[in-house]
């Protein structure tokens, strides 16, 4: 079944006709030519397809495009506004990438993660559920655990997150 939906991607509005089966990831990459989010596992297991959907980090491979009609999507590419986003700058300075395949997902996830922490959301490793969040290494590792890196660039990614968290 075909349906016309609208998506705002990195600030640009699009109208696109999608089959019910089309995932948001395929709509972005195959239909709109937005190749910043990558397809890794296609089953929610690796995080490379992460974007910011209506402001929150979100996997695009397990979402049907038709269900996201009207959504605002920001990809890693769209985060650069004139210059690099602070998270992108930190990733660059701390060598948070090797082949770079997981990087767009890591960047979007980190932006979303920092925002969640700023709002005081606890994580699995938070000792006191009602206290303020302090992003130490264990917190960053846990909160970024949905993004896998086959090259093992984790030490750089961790350092980048700590710098970005300091602001």
């Amino acid at each position, binding site marked *: 079944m075909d349906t016309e939906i609208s998506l705002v991607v990195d600030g640009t509005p699009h109208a696109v006709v999608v089959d019910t089966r089309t995932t948001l990831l395929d709509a972005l990459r195959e239909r709109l030519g937005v190749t910043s989010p990558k397809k890794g596992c296609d089953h929610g297991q690796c995080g490379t397809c*992460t974007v910011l959907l209506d402001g929150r980090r979100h996997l695009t491979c397990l979402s049907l495009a038709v*269900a996201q009609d009207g959504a605002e999507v920001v990809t890693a590419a769209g985060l650069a506004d004139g210059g690099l986003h602070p998270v992108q700058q930190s990733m660059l300075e701390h060598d948070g990438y090797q082949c770079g395949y997981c990087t767009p997902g890591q960047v979007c996830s980190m932006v979303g993660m920092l925002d969640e922490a700023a709002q005081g959301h606890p994580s699995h490793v938070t000792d006191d559920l009602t206290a303020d969040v302090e992003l130490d290494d264990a917190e960053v590792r846990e909160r970024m655990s949905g993004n896998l890196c086959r090259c093992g660039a984790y030490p750089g990614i961790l350092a980048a997150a700590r710098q970005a968290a300091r602001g």
Partner: protein
Amino acid sequence: MRALDYRRAGSAEEAVELVATHPGARFLAGGSNLVDHLKLGITAPGLLVDVSRLPLDTVEHLDGDHGSVLRIGANVRNSDLAAHPVVRSRFPVVARATLAGASGQIRNQATTAGNLLQRTRCVYFQDVTTPCNKRDPGSGCSAIGGYGRYNAILGASDQCVTTHPSDLAVGLAAVDATVVVLGAEGERRIPFEDLHRLPGDRPEADTTLAPSDLVTAVELPMGPEVERSTYTKVRDRASYAFALVSVAATLRLKDDRVDRVRIAWGGVAHKPWRARRAEEALTGGPLDEQAVRAAVDEELAAATTDDETAFKVAMVRNTTTMTLLGLAGEAAR
């Protein structure tokens, strides 16, 4: 994936009506489990009824016919549930169970109802080239005698030996939650323990719900007395993996004796396992290591294991002991 239709429901009633009148139709919430199953060919509904925009997305404290309850809408995202101040302060076991599941991104997508109604992660269920009674009734069970690390040790049948994967469900089993359901005949309320079922000779049915039953909310009783509670999950990796074994527990002590205790286990059965015998054995007595071990062993007397699952007995015993002693320590402070 087979071609399928899509409708966005305008109201809960319309959603129920659509699924009731279209055999094989399914509700779509966050999609993080259902879309995966469409891709894998595990299910092929002719119609998806999108319920994700129904206004069932708030957490509210209500005082009404059913006492004082915290009502969690079916569409509340897992991340919002775990971050809710009342959930964090009054129901740490629910917050912690939610936070122990999946990843930050998936918790932003996953809904309360979708999480409870997610299907098993049995590797054979997910591999359509292998026999599986749950996916394809009557075809056989590949897990019996196969890869069994995640298999059940309680309540399994000779038709299916898998476990329920949800962490949140184990947390809710320990707080005596109630599931609010809108069916073709109107609204009804189900004690949480009666939502999921053991496999018996119908392993394809995970729950007692009819296909057109829409979960609209989950309610947690908010008694005047605050209990200690927590959730412990044991898994192969430190994060982002399903439970081998998990323990949800709530505890209230009075004069150093157990006044009230609730214990639910994950990773051991086809449903969250409420350890009622263990609870009974502990109630009224002291909470020490010996008492907990004895109570757990009483509950596990019915366990059946094989080479692949034998480790779970000691894991459940040790994790339950650690969890309850930890809560008792907190209570004493």
